[in-house]
């Protein structure tokens, strides 16, 4: 193959990467994508011949009858699809360089003295290669949290964007994460009974801390705030005068971190798989009525779907579990998501991390698999629109951004992806990705290696000079 033209990286790529690394925010561009197949992301089926207009970092119009405003640069979307960016729920994007290399891996903190107080925000690294690879797969937003290790709590997760800039955080401390079931039981000392006792104790200690009158800013009532992203660090974390009784298990930081959970300000993501474990989680609200629960995992959710729906608890599930990989997953089936959804449960696909089968860019493929199930007798699948919503608007809504992320509707963030075909199909790939109206580089170490090894010609010089 010709070596010409492969020697120099494109200048635009160099600039984009340099800006990203230097932390310069790129400016949002106004853009109109015309005559494309549009998937809004809200569960509706795709429509052809549509136009999407993004101005000032937001979607201002999307639909078949939309004319591009004068003065806005137009991209001809003929033969293309335009969709909202994909939302990867419960990922570790930005926390890991190489999973098997501990030094660069902030996924777990098995020797930490802290639990619920752990906050991913200062650990997030937007320059992680996993972020770049996921971005090239059309993922624009994600929720990020570590894994429980020293305690049943993983700590506080964030909602992030995958833009190539210095700041990943869309919303810090967006949720708390706890593992019950087999993993929680193991961490808690060997039994589900201990995991539940630890959780209940933690929530009670948090409630007590929240009520404590001598703690500045306390009083037990959450401060009146409109939106959860306004949640400030709990004042108990900065107050050095606070005192607590000695009979406590949680450190001050950990207890304070759980105050917004027990008060219902901050959602509690609970990882469980077995149907009976799900029911035990739903029952927590009889003791802690303010809890805003989100079920994570829920491999056997289809067996408790009516109860989950009645409790109005959303679910973030990995869609392609179908092996009894653990005893808590005996009834695993690819039909789980569709069956829960049919029962009225709000279900997003998620739990994508790392670089193997569950790497985040495979989420579109997996959503496509749920569509395929619709044609298998006895299995339950999703319509295309439902499957696509499960990786866009639904996870965005569970994250607290209903109508603002994961959907191409006026007022939503300008997170858009232009694909060269059906985004759930194996042959398709993004050709342009926008985060809040900013066009993103679609490069990574992988694309650089690809370009270097387009041929194996070393007649003139080593490959090391080819960059």
């Amino acid at each position, binding site marked *: 193959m010709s070596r010409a033209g492969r020697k120099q990286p494109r200048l635009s790529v160099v600039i984009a990467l340099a800006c990203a690394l230097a932390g310069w925010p790129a400016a949002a561009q106004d853009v109109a994508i015309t005559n494309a197949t549009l998937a809004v992301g809200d569960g509706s089926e795709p429509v052809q011949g549509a136009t999407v207009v993004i101005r000032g970092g937001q979607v201002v119009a999307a639909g078949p009858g939309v004319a591009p405003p004068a003065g806005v640069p137009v991209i001809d979307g003929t033969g293309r699809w335009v969709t909202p960016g994909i939302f990867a729920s419960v990922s570790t994007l930005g926390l890991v*360089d190489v999973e098997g290399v501990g030094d660069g891996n902030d996924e777990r903190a098995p020797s930490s003295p802290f639990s619920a107080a752990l906050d991913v925000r200062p650990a997030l690294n937007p320059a992680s290669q996993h972020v770049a690879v996921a971005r090239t797969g059309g993922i624009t937003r994600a929720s990020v949290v570590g894994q429980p290790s020293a305690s049943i709590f993983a700590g506080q997760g964030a909602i992030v964007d995958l833009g190539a800039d210095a700041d990943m955080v869309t919303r810090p401390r967006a949720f708390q994460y706890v593992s019950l079931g087999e993993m929680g039981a193991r961490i808690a000392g060997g039994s589900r009974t201990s995991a539940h006792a630890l959780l209940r104790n933690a929530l009670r200690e948090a409630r007590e801390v929240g009520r404590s009158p001598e703690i500045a800013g306390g009083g037990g009532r959450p401060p009146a705030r409109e939106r959860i992203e306004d949640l400030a660090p709990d004042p108990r974390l900065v107050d050095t005068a606070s005192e607590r009784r000695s009979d406590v298990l949680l450190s001050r930081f950990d207890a304070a971190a759980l105050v917004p959970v027990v008060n219902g300000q901050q959602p509690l993501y609970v990882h469980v798989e077995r149907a009976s474990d799900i029911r035990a989680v739903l029952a927590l609200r009889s003791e802690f009525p303010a809890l805003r629960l989100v079920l994570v995992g829920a491999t056997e959710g289809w067996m408790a779907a009516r109860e989950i729906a009645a409790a109005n608890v959303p679910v973030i599930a990995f869609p392609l579990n*179908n092996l009894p990989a*653990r005893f808590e997953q005996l009834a695993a089936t690819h039909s789980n998501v569709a069956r829960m959804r049919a029962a009225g449960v709000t279900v997003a696909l998620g739990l994508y991390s790392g670089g*193997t089968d569950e790497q985040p860019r495979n989420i579109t493929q997996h959503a496509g698999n749920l*569509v395929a199930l619709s044609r298998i007798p006895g299995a339950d699948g999703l319509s295309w629109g439902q499957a696509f919503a499960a990786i866009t608007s639904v996870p965005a809504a569970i994250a607290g951004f209903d109508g603002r992320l994961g959907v191409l509707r006026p007022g939503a963030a300008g997170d858009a992806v232009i694909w060269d075909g059906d985004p759930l*199909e194996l*042959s398709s790939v993004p050709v342009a990705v926008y985060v809040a109206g900013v066009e993103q580089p679609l490069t990574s170490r992988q694309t650089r290696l690809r370009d270097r090894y387009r041929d194996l010609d070393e007649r003139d010089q080593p490959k090391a000079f080819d960059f």
Partner: protein
Amino acid sequence: MSRRLAPVLLAAVALLPACTAVPSERGTERPATAGASRAPLGADGRQPYASTYRAYPGTPTALVGATVFDGTGRRIDNGTVLLREGKVVAVGDATLSTAGYERIDAAGKFVTPGIIDIHSHLGNYPSPAVEAHSDGNEATDPTTPEVWAEHSVWPQDPGFSRALANGGVTALQILPGSANLSGGRSVTLKNVPARTVQAMKFPGAPYGLKMACGENPKRVYGSRGRMPSTRMGNMAVNRQTWLDAREFADGDRKKRNLANETLAGVLDGEILLHNHCYRADEMAFVIDMAKEMGYRVAAFHHAVEAYKIGDLLRDNGICSAIWADWYGFKMESYDAIPENAAFLQREGACVVIHSDDPNGIQRLNQEAAKAQAAGRRVGIDIPDAQVIRWITLNAATAMGIDRMTGSLEPGKMADVVLWNGNPLSVYSRPEKVWIDGALMYDALTRRRPVSDFELGQPGEGDAK
């Protein structure tokens, strides 16, 4: 790492894994079948642990009107495939007579050979992935060519049925894990449920030897203060092992030694070498080691950097058994790119798509399609029918079973998948799967196997 899997399984699969290598489609030499093996017989005069597999009865069947990818790279539109008495009788166009066959209207559907996974741990890392089932790595010594994977396979692993129903997998090679430099013998199975492993063993399939490069052996043993703790230690232990094996092989072989019998089988060319190896530089060393010691590598497994040495792999007739897009989960996988398969194809090197995963084995067709798409985007256009070869005939060739299965050619085993759409589309799934002409899965009539483990459990018999 994964939130899906128990920590126990992760330790087994993701890092400590399970990994290996394959042979070449280019070579004209063919591995000897088991009947030709010089391995010592038992006291009863028979091959030990011989296959007792028997094909189940089938109906003479004509698949009519489908798009046929025959596994060799050929595509037949509006094709006809005839199966009778466990064999492929004929593959042709609409003019082929179907008299005497039960006709299945396959218009709008696709027919391929049964999918073959060259790298699986079903049975030796089965579900549920509890410690009691962790039988893939005899991680007590870095060199254990004496162990045989078949003695670890649990035939009730529910994963076999998922591979059949969702993946159309009709044959698969179960390998020891990659904790050891020499992990032991592999076994090739028919994906037919059975009460014993012998009754799953693919008749006539040669054995393989699993070896492993790189991080896993040196980490597992180095962390115990034992050799090898480095890559040079890996090579030194391997070379001495081969030197000792050569001495055994050149002797009278009368005093039985299980380890050396396996290694001598490799030196004899009767046992195929499957070498887990990620990095290009290490693969190049293994190629030279094979020349130094006088054996042949059938395939490098995982081979995420194979694209850097496609020329070398082509020239040495070694297949690369790879994932479509796994990357960056360990240091030696850091340079993986989705174009790996396409770049190998560009060089004329042999490509096999493998799973090494009980979930991935259910989607080898989708993995192949992703690898194809990555190639297309860099101007390497590989036709669908060629891509199907990556998961059928190329795998069979690397496993030494290509004279029996892997393509739809007259006289070969009737291992066949009828797909309800193009298997390279995400929207397609197997509709029917035959193994030796016997219908083992039928989505429409819900004919699917249920393992003993799943009987009486939640979800028994469900569409999985």
